[in-house]
């Protein structure tokens, strides 16, 4: 396996420790739970060695981005787990459990609907979204690629997300995944 620790891990850890209070505050606001926020920070800490292996120009923003991504991963995992727990708990789910199963279906449906929306986007909008989301290009580079201004790219992307959010049923939109129904192990509580 690829070992190889970089000498920069210590530097990144120092930045992490300096930014820790702010990271925790951001994550708490993002996840609406101090406990979940602490868990994500712990995950992030464990990943610092891997992250330090690349050249980092701006370590603090990188840490915020990574923390936010981990928080979103956690939410997605929680929604899938909630759906699974409900699906596995009983062969014949009671009426109160149907939303969980629906949510799992909604995730698939949401993807299909997102595909549907993307297929019908103006080509330039779809390209901007693809370059941004799949290829990880910055808005400035996308502007160069498309030969338009940066603010035009931002508008395109806003519209693209807006269309997807409006037309594609989000897994969290019809029935938002509750923040506080997740216990400490992230499992769906069945008694509330």
């Amino acid at each position, binding site marked *: *396996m690829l070992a190889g620790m970089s000498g920069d891990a210590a530097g990144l850890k120092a930045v992490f420790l300096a930014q820790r209070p702010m990271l925790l505050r951001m994550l708490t606001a993002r996840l609406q739970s101090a406990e979940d926020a602490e868990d994500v920070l712990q995950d992030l800490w464990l990943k610092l060695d891997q992250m330090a292996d690349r050249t980092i120009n701006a370590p603090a923003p990188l840490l915020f981005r990574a923390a936010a991504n981990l928080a979103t991963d956690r939410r*997605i995992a929680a929604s899938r787990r909630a759906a699974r727990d409900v699906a596995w708990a009983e062969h014949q789910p009671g009426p109160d459990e149907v939303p969980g199963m629906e949510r799992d279906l909604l995730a698939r449906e949401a993807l299909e609907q997102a595909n549907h929306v993307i297929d019908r986007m103006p080509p330039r909008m779809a390209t901007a979204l*693809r370059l941004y989301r799949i290829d990880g290009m910055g808005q400035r580079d996308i502007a160069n690629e498309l030969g338009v201004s940066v603010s035009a790219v931002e508008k395109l992307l806003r519209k693209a997300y807006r269309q997807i959010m409006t037309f594609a049923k989000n897994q969290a939109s019809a029935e938002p995944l509750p923040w506080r129904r997740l216990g400490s192990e992230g499992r769906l509580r069945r008694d509330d």
Partner: protein
Amino acid sequence: MTKGETVLDQAIAWHLRLAGADEAGWLAFTEWLEAAPAHAEAYDRVAMTDGLLSESEALASAPASSADGVNDNFPHPGRGFGWWVGGLGVAAAAAALALLPGLVRPQGSSIYETAPGMARTVALADGSRVELSGGSRLRFEESAPQVAILDRGEALFQVRHDPTRSFTVRTGDVAVQDLGTVFSVAHGGDGVRVEVAEGSVAVSRQQRRLTLGPGQTALAGTAQAGLVAGTIAPADVGGWRSRSLTFQGAPLSAVIERLNRLYALHISLSPNLSDRPFTGMVQLTGDAARDVPHLAALTGTKWRRDGEGWLLSSAD
């Protein structure tokens, strides 16, 4: 509802801004989240939907400044791989290219190709490593360096996980997303097989998605839709490197095709044996004169020399 829409617009704007935000930007974002529970809820929706987009085939096949559909000089996938050609992605990208003259320009993509029997290790810029087996082709589009496209053959990936940028292997209609790991992807006559030695990967095909841990496998068969889960000893993943191969119910034609590709053997199979399933471990020496009789014994077939190659036929 107008107010809710405004909050959603704000959430989208924040989401787009965060990619390039500095510390002050993240502080401002945090303050916005804290200002109202509806803000956090709206942002949660946007972020989770955005997470979903990485699985969107429509988005992945949207036109980009890539060489997709432009480089006709790519050799066509070899015999036995025609089943996946015509995958939605390339066709859709090509169609879109026609609509967008001047917008999409062909650019270089990195192609790594091995002849049958040859292996090659490719070191990627991020420290990840790919061991490419014989008769394989792997490419990276310049526009999407974190997506490896396995056109044919098989490769062992040792990926340095980066939580901010995931690494994906695409082959046919199967996508394998690394979650920090050592795994192998083989694209053969019976389908695409993914095997995990360390860590985990998420395999998706059409609407199906499986997360695999060490010792778990997924087969995206040519004959059926979806994914079939299985197991393997983690040490056996990438066994082709030590000429040790494990098969589970693979059609004999796929076994032979794989051996020919990996080790430049010239074995042919009498057609009535093509579909016979084979389960077992094959340990080869590299000396065909020993390996072919061994293989015949394992598969219950009869071997004979056939010109410069070998022919396996029914034992009776």
